[in-house]
């Protein structure tokens, strides 16, 4: 299990290559990558604030719960903070499991919990000024799936 919180970009290709590489007992690897989205060319900067200390604890707790609930060989969580541009990668999770159902469900679970239980906040700086991204009811509701 590896949890990384950093301001710098991460190397998705290298991380994907290295994750669970050479393991003969894991038939399935799932990755999710979150990207700064800007549909109508409105966004200049996505600023991500976090709570140093609690962030690492919260991510570790979520990843540990995933390891307990599914049959997984490994879990990776990388999440950035700071100022990001449209198209930049914000975060990634990866799960490795003997079977695909576990890898998919665990990655899905990690994302639902990361959305609503990891202490990150997003502020958009755009053509129309700045605004904090509001949490969505559907994201909170998604937790009841697990």
């Amino acid at each position, binding site marked *: 299990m590896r949890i990384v919180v950093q301001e710098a970009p991460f190397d998705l290709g290298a991380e994907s290559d290295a994750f669970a590489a050479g393991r003969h007992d894991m038939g399935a690897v799932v990755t999710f990558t979150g990207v700064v989205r800007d549909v109508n060319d409105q966004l200049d900067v996505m600023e991500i604030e976090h*709570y140093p200390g609690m962030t690492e604890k919260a991510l570790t707790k979520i990843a540990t719960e995933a390891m307990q609930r599914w049959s997984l060989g490994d879990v990776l969580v990388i*999440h950035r903070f700071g100022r990001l541009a449209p198209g930049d990668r914000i975060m990634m999770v990866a799960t490795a499991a003997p079977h695909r159902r576990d890898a998919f469900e665990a990655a899905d679970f990690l994302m639902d919990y990361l959305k609503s*239980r990891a202490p990150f906040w997003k502020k958009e700086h755009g053509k129309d000024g700045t605004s904090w991204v509001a949490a969505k009811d559907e994201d909170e509701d998604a937790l009841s799936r697990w």
Partner: protein
Amino acid sequence: MDILYFAWVRERIGLPKERITTDAATVADLVAELIAREDRYAVAFSDLSALRVAVDQELTDFDAPLSGVREVAFFPPMTGG
């Protein structure tokens, strides 16, 4: 006790962190104390349903006890991922 503020709570109160001495028994008591202090706190805490609280870096409720606690943080619902 350290009190931390994040996102728009930090912006409304105007600082990220302060150290206070309090006899508040619960988070709710602490919030009442802060609201009584100054208008900017009253504004930031006007709708508790829009706020979340962490005590010693664990998400909790507003009725959580504060005895022995070192750090309380207030912030809006999180938007990670």
